[in-house]
Structure formats: C-alpha cells, structure tokens
C-alpha cells in the first residue's frame, strides 16, 4: 500500500509542477498582452486628442465664416438675424379637405392647359 501512495504523491507533485509552470507562462503572456493593449490605448487616446484638436481647428468660427462666404452662391448662409424669428401665424393652415362626392354628374368636355384653375 505504502509504495503505491509514494508513487501517487510523486506523480501529483510532477503534475502540480507542470501546472505551475504553465500558469506562470500564461500569466506572463497575459501581462504582456495587457501591456500591449495599454500602449495601444495610450496611442489611441493620443490620436483622439489630436483628432479632437483638429476637429476644433477645422470648426473654428473664423474658418466656418470664410467658408460660408466663399460658398455663398450655393449655400446662401447669412448670419442669424432677428427677422428670422417667425410667429405661429406665419405658418399656413393645412388645406381644407374637399367635401365628399355625394352625387355624380356626367360632364363631357376637354381639359386644356388654360383650365388649370379647376
């Protein structure tokens, strides 16, 4: 009985040693990956800062004003003015619904382009 126990514990020792070895390398690999990812995050954040700065630079009011002036013929943008505020009264009411057709009449004739009012 005893030799079997010895053999088993020796095998267990070898197995644990192997496990510890693998864990060690797996941890080191994970740490290396984290380090790489962190470096990547820092790089991306830096890029983000640059892009944010560039966005702010490209959207600076002076430049937008110049662009609006240069493209006035296409965009027709003007500085905002008090007269651009409207009132509810300026909005047209929706067109009244036509009454339903209650009886039919036969009409004969031709429609020319002059009869647009109908």
């Amino acid at each position, binding site marked *: 009985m005893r030799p079997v126990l010895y053999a088993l514990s020796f095998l267990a020792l070898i197995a644990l040693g192997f496990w510890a070895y693998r864990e060690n390398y797996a941890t080191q690999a994970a740490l290396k990956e984290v380090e790489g990812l962190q470096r990547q995050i*820092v790089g991306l954040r830096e890029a983000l800062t640059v892009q944010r700065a560039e966005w702010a*630079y490209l959207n600076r009011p*002076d430049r937008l004003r110049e662009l609006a002036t240069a493209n006035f013929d296409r965009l027709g943008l003007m500085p*905002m003015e008090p*007269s651009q505020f409207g009132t509810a009264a300026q909005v047209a009411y929706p067109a009244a619904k036509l009454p339903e057709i209650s009886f039919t009449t036969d009409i004969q004739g031709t429609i020319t382009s002059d009869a647009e009012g109908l």
Partner: protein
Amino acid sequence: MRTPLRPLARILHARQEGLNPDSIEKENLKVRHEAMREKTRGRAQFRLFILCASFVFAFGAIGARMGLMAATEPVEPKSSAPGAEIIAQRADITDRNGRVLATNMTTHALYAHPKVMVDPKGTAVKLEEIFPELDAKALERRFTDGRSFVWIRKVLSPEQMQKVHEIGDPGLLFGPREMRLYPNGTLAAHVLGGTSFGAEGVHSAEVIGVAGIEKALDARLRDPAQGGKPLTLSIDLTLQSTIEEVLAAGMGMLNAKGAAAILMDARTGEILALASLPTFDPNDRPNPLVDKNAEPGDSPLFNRAVQGVYELGSTFKIFAVAQAMELGLVNPQTMVDANAPMTWGKYKIKEFEGHNYGPLLAVTDVIAKSSNVGTAHIALMIGPLRQQQFLKSLGFFEPTPLELVEAPGAKPLIPKKWPEIVTITTSYGHGMSASPMHLAAAYAAIANGGVMIKPTLLKREGPTTGVRVMSEKTAADSVAMLRRVVLEGTATLGDVPGYEVAGKTGTADKPKKSGGYYHDKVVNTFASMFPASNPQYVLIVTLDEPQDDTLSETRRTAGWTAVPVAAEIIRRVAPLMGLRPKLEPVVADAVTAASN
C-alpha cells in the same frame, strides 16, 4: 534501565562490613540526579538553539527582502488603470457648450549630445536649413566647445522631426513633449492667456500657465486629482466670435486704437464673451513690451476689458440717480436744478458743447440728456460719505474677482480725499477710474433687480445669490430711465427693434501723462442691458480713441461711436442666444401678395 537506589547485593555487603547502607542510597541518588540534570540541560540548549535559529532566519528574511526592494528599480504595477499617463496631462479648457478652447498635443523637443556627434559642422549647417531661425555658426560653436548637452528646439512639427531624422547624426536626440494648443487661434485670447514650459527635462517638460485663466487656475488645470476633467468656462464660442468680428469691424471703421466688449448674464454673473482688441495668438504669444515709455495699452497682450482702468464718464450718472431714488431723495419726476454752467468754488461744471438743459430738469431727463449739472446737484444731495459707500457696494473700490491673473492687479483709481468737488465729478464719471468689467458688474446689479452678483468666467448652474444693493423698485425705475436714453436721449442709434435696449453712453477725455486732459482723445463707453422689460444680459462696449468722420464732421461722442457698434452686436448676438424679438415681424410677402 533504571538502577535501583538500594541494590540488595551492595546493601547486604555493606551490612556485613558494618557500614551504613544509607550512604549507598545517597550515592546512587546523586548519580541519578546528575544524569537527570545533564539531560535537562541538553534539551534546554537545543530549544534555545532552535529559537535562536528561527529569529535569525525570520529577521534575515525580512532584511534580505528589504535589501532587495531597496536595490531594485521601481516598476509601475502592471495591473494599474490604463492611460494613467494621459490623465497626468494638463486639463483641457472648453467653452460652455463643451467646444474645445485649449487642448494638448504630443510633440518632440530636439537636443544634442555634441560628444557623440559625428559631424558637428555639417549637422549645424543642415539644421539651419531646416530651422531658418537658427544660426549655423553659433550652433557649431556650441557643438564644439566641449559641452556635452545642448538644447536646440523646444517643439518640432512631425515634418521637421522627419527632416532631422534624415540628417542621421547620432548626437541629435528627441525628447517627448506636451504642447498646449489653442485651435481657435486669436479667439478669446485674453481670457485664455497662454502657457510656456516650466522645468524642462529630457523625458518631459512642465507646461505652466503664463497669463489669463491658464495662470489663474494653473493649480486646478494641473491637479491630477481632477482626472483630466476639462475646465468649462462661461464663455460661449459663437457669441465670442461674433462679438470679436463686429467689434473689429467697428474699431476699423471708427479708426479706434483699441476696443473692448463684455457680454454678461445678469442673473448668474457669467461672462458669455469678453473681447479686447487688438488681440494676439496664444499659440505664439508675443513678447511683452520692453520700451519703458510705451503705454501698457499699446501691447496686444493688454486686456482692455479687465486691465484697462479708464474714467468711464457719464455711464456713472445712473449710479448717483439710483442711489438718490433709493434714499428717497428724488423720484423720476422730481425737478432738479440743471442750470449750466454751475460754479462750485473755483470749478465750473459745464454741459457737453456748452448746452444748458436748465433751469430745471426732471431726473429722468437728467439721465436721458446726460446732464452733468443735474447729476452734480443730485450727488450733492447724497453727500460724499453715502456716495462712497454705495460705489463700494457696487464693487468700484476693489479689483474684480474674475478668474484671470490680470484681474487682481487692475485696481480702480480712487481719489485719496473725497471733498465735495470729487463727489460732483465722480457722479458723472470723472476723477475716478475703473475697468469696463467693474461697470459690467455694477450694471448687472441694476439689470438683476438690484442684486449684485460676482462676475465669473466659470460656468454656473442656475441663478446664484448675491448681495442686494438697491430695491427692486429703484432698479426697475433705473432701467426705465436707461431705456429712455436709447429711445429719445443720447443713444438713439442703439435701438435694436424688438430687443428693447436700455443703456447709458459715456465719453471721457483721456488724461495726459503730464496732467490735464486731451481734447481730441477720448474713451467712449456704452453700457447697456436688454431686453428692458426683463433685463437678462448686460453688454459693455468701450472704444479707445475712436472718431466718426462720416457726414463731413468729426464726432467723438459715444452716441456716434460705441452705441452703433453695441447695437450691431446686440442685433447679431441676441438671436444667437435664442432671444425672440418683441415686435411682430413685418410680413412683407403677405403684403406684396395682397397687393397683387
């Protein structure tokens, strides 16, 4: 095996010999005791040895660990939060809507180790080609005079860095740098101020504020505890840009030397825009003036809105009138003596261009017509002591509490003594000087129903509490008087249809350095608030030495210079703030359609 104490054989033998057998027992007992003692001592020694060994081992282990820790290089824990390096940067500055006003960029500095340089002369020549401002000969001298370290440039663009790489000399090295960037260029330059490098090392350099809010709130911007949270200002980029545009146009048209404008929310004390012209680019701050004879105002770095301490002229009249109403001395309809010129001791107080609005004038007309004599009589009713107290409560005796490093230095100039003639001149804004920012804060108190709120450049949430300096009724009456100035007084050009502008003009002759006043150099101010029925915003416009040459006549009064500029600012800015004009807009299309 245990030896008996009285072995029978020896006892019998001893008895036969006639000896005392007890001695045998004693002897044996002694031997036994000795053996026991030996055994106990051995055990105790062994225990002591074990104890000693464990102490040595334990302390040895601790000592070894300490030695190891002291000897190794410190390493960041690997599982720390990502991007800690980024958070250690200087915080961004944004406007009230989160638009970036100041941010950081990573760049590089260039330095050299001349001792490892292969070709110092050729390198110096090539560096001069890349950076024209460098002098190849001076550079070569520094490379060859035996020093081992030379700074060449503080910041490089990526293109320049590539070109330096292409020189390929091993003695040229790069150090990473954080650089402060102001993407909007000159916009709000006086608010932001600027930065420069503090302590510089090869691996990093400190970025420190040198002016404006960058310096005033330097500690907050560099505080790592804030976690890189951006600093939100009360400035609105759109309003700031519009005001700077209109102000620059007005300054050019009126040939003014400088101009300043402040737009302030009267309820919260937030400064929505603060402009001072001429301006500068904080990315490339000009050097301060070295010439001792130059006035500080000649430098573009000078913030006219905060540092420009001027005699603000007739804009002060409303304070005398408001105080008299508050004290119950007058009401808007009271008739006061306005017979010009008024003689006080050896002084003669005149009206503009020698007018005479007297003999009697209603208080509301004193403001509308800007009568010096009428205001002087009202001020005399108040008396010097009460006048000083009131002006003190409006903040005219202290520097403004604005978050700019320039603000505490801009102390108002107050006469040392306060005789009655000073009471008279101060009532119409002469003899004492203050900055446009002081004026904005005091007018905001009137606009805000008599409650004085500290102006700020940081975004505030909701209305703030302040000190009441006058009753709501007085404030309302004062606003009504200021509205009349625009409707039928000295500021009729300031009326913007729909926005009910109320305000007061001020024209002050500039004092000469040698004493006395210039007659052709003035500072024009228009202090206004809108809309008069429910004042929300205060706008101060100041022009330095303007003149209006249109209509074949040179005019230097504020009504012809600062007022139209302010009116244009209000016309452009009010819609941007979502203020709806009060008038019904004329529907031109409907009329044309009907006539057709």
